[in-house]
């Protein structure tokens, strides 16, 4: 018998009237066997998280959960009341959330959090809780359990917090684990470790339900993949079938949208066919030259003797794990942080060495596209104000401003309809387009893109990357592209810098650096990267 058997599940969020009801999920069926992993993949709004929550009875007070049957072993979950659900949660179904600083209560110790299931369900006597928690912490690979037991979530790294969340989920020895985006927000090396830990749980005979937006992540673990879109199943099969012979156009588009070395020079979103990028071997003309940059915060050498050059029309990819110093380096290039030694020149003239009052008039030449435009836009400004502000700074004649704004918006695929929208009224992809239009308004010599697609869904990411590629070709954009995602870096870069512990450990053409890495850190990065089993 299957551990969990779901037949024709539908989740509806009741609105004020039947017309306003939101169908989060429709017609979803699957079964989880012991030692097997079912992966539910989809983009935001696909209903994957609603499904995960419905399976533990936490879809929310407005949710209507219906199914032909919903069986946990032989028990009918549809007939459950709150008390029945509480007995199941933690005991028979464990739940692992995405690591966020606050997925564990920030005010309680790791020990108190991980031991909570044991205490609530009275699984071990009071005095036995601490020893059991220490065992659990050790079993998920947390070094120094005794020390970690008394620490708080903010004192742990992202990877350790995720392990602690897993320890908490398995503490009641449930037969089924639901993991909702368990590796999102972790860098590749830590992600690979967490996936290994999850595969050990699977090997122990637990049933695993893995929820993710990332097909590559689930490809290692899944025995069965379901692709959801707008709450409906569009693809359903073994990994082999899904990856080799995808049936739905949506799955094909999703697979094609994943950036990698193979996709360089090609369109990811499929809607803008492009000629193979002519990486014209013109005489290299240096725009930005950094030499011997150093930055220390206290004892920590965050940027350590970093030198590099960006030539005109070139995209340099900067890749590294969180904490590698890449954000600080980007801030130094932007002139927001002063290096303790070393210099940056821009078009042959001093940049980092300038006093602020002399750099400020030049700032329009170096522009930033940040990860989260929602945070970097004034929520009360409309698109016309956001882009107009950049034009004001370069003293663009007021008479032609509106026409220029429209031209800039057109260049990023937006139009007059969006002029009066505020940031919250735009989708994530549209916001990022506005951020790019704003950055381009001052006709910068260099564009710094700091994780510009990390917060976007795969298909939106594909559109934004295609947009940047098109702009690069048409405007001869010079870019420093910072990302933790090797696939993205390999797709966009003409040259790659690999950063670790404040140093550039490897530099060169993306194919050479990422296909035949020489430095051990680059090797570890590349090995950890989840790859699609496609030919």
């Amino acid at each position, binding site marked *: 018998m299957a551990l969990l058997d779901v037949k024709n599940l539908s989740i509806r969020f009741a609105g004020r009237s039947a017309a306003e009801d939101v169908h989060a999920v429709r017609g979803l069926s699957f079964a989880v066997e012991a030692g097997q992993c079912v992966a539910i993949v989809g983009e935001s709004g696909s209903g994957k998280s609603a499904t995960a*929550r419905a399976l*533990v009875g*936490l879809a929310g007070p407005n949710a209507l959960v219906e199914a032909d049957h919903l069986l946990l072993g032989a028990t009918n979950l549809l007939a459950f009341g*709150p008390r029945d659900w*509480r*007995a*199941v*949660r*933690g*005991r028979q*179904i*464990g*739940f692992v*959330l*995405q690591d*966020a600083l*606050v*997925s*564990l*209560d*920030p*005010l*309680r*110790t790791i020990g108190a*959090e991980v031991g*909570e*299931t044991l205490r*609530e*369900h009275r699984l071990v006597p009071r005095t036995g809780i601490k020893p059991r928690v220490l065992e659990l912490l050790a079993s998920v690979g947390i070094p120094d359990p005794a020390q970690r037991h008394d620490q*708080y979530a*903010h*004192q742990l790294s992202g990877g350790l917090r995720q392990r602690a*969340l897993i320890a*908490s*989920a398995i503490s*009641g020895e449930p037969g089924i684990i639901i993991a909702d985006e368990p590796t999102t927000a972790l860098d590749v090396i830590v992600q690979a470790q967490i996936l290994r830990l999850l595969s050990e749980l699977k090997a122990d005979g637990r049933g695993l339900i893995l929820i993710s937006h990332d097909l590559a992540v689930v490809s290692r673990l899944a025995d069965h993949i379901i692709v959801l879109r707008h709450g409906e199943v569009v693809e359903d099969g073994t990994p082999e079938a899904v990856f080799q012979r995808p049936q739905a156009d949506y799955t094909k588009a999703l697979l094609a949208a994943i950036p990698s070395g193979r996709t360089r020079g090609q369109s990811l979103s499929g809607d803008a066919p492009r000629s193979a990028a002519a990486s014209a071997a013109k005489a290299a003309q240096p725009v930005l030259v950094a030499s011997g940059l150093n930055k220390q915060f206290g004892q920590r050498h965050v940027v350590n003797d970093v030198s590099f050059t960006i030539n005109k029309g070139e995209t340099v990819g900067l890749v590294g794990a969180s904490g590698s110093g890449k954000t600080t380096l980007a801030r130094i290039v932007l002139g927001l942080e002063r290096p303790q030694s070393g210099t940056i020149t821009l078009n042959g003239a001093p940049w980092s060495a300038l006093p602020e009052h002399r750099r400020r008039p030049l700032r329009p030449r170096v522009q930033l596209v940040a990860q989260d435009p929602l945070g970097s836009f004034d929520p009360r400004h409309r698109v016309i104000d956001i882009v107009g502000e950049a034009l004001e700074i370069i003293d663009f004649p007021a008479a032609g401003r509106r026409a220029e704004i429209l031209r800039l918006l057109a260049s990023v695929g937006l139009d007059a309809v969006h002029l009066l929208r505020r940031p919250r009224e735009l989708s994530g992809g549209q916001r990022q387009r506005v951020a790019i239009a704003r950055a381009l308004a001052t006709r910068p010599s260099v564009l710094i893109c700091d994780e510009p697609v990390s917060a976007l869904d795969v298909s939106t990411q594909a559109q934004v990357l295609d947009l940047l590629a098109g702009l690069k070709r048409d405007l001869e954009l010079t870019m420093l592209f910072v990302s933790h995602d090797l696939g993205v870096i390999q797709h966009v870069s003409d040259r790659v810098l690999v950063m670790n512990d404040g140093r550039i450990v490897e530099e060169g053409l993306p194919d050479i650096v990422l296909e035949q890495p020489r430095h051990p850190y680059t090797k570890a990065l590349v090995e950890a990267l989840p790859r699609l089993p496609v030919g």
Partner: protein
Amino acid sequence: MTIARELFVRILAGAAVLWAAASLAFIVLQMLPSDPVQVIYGADATVTPEMRDLIRAEYGLDRPIWEQYGQFVGRILQGDLGTSYQQRRSVVSIIGSELGSTITLAVSATIFALTLAVFASVTTAGRRSHVRSLMSAIELLSISTPAFWIGLLLLTFLSFQWPIFPVMGDNSWRSMVLPVTTLGLAIFGTLSQVMRAEMDLALEQPFALTARTRGLSEWSVRWRHALRHALIPGLTISAEMFGSLLAGAIITERVFGRPGLGRITLQAVTNQDIPVVVGVVLFVAAIFVTTNIAVDLLYRLIDPRLRSATA
């Protein structure tokens, strides 16, 4: 920075606040149009120039102004707040004799309000129900109704209509019930609103979902997880309100005929008994400074993130 060092800095800053309060009081005192000698003798008395000189010498009013300031600060440092013009007693002993009653009232009212607010926010946060709407209405009423009106209503019903509690006096716990309720209700509204808003936020956080997936009951999620988050703003507000209750309970003390700081402040202001007014100002400033330091220390107990932020 270690806790000891942080504490030291806070105490220094507190001392600076007190010094500033004392200096400001001194300056205002100098700018007052009234004549201290006249106040001491009473407005109607005729004072001969000889008597005037005698009095001025006795209170040090004949010295140059900077010397008066030096003496003023020096006396405060020795814990001497001067002598009342009216009662011819030391200000310290006047405040001391009234303090007990006021502190008992303020502490009880704060505890009462905090208990009520914890109960109200735990039961109604994160829910859309009639109970919540009702509680919101009560809070709004408590915020917008003046304390004396609540006091009069309580007296009318619980003392005159049904004589359950005494009308006035300060002799038993029964006499405390109405004033404590009056003051407590006045601060409960704000406290409860702020704590519920914080708890609403906490219940939306991923850790609350994590706790629920462990099989915790709604009640446990609220008590064990969300409440602690709500206590952080709750404490800030309670501390501030506790400070203002010490000096601001005048009306309630009058309505219920209780002795207390409020009564002597009122008397001192009406009679222009400057040393007492200055004494009360300094005393209340000192209380504010100490409660603020205490609350900062409590934050660290509640929120571990603050402990390492300064480590």
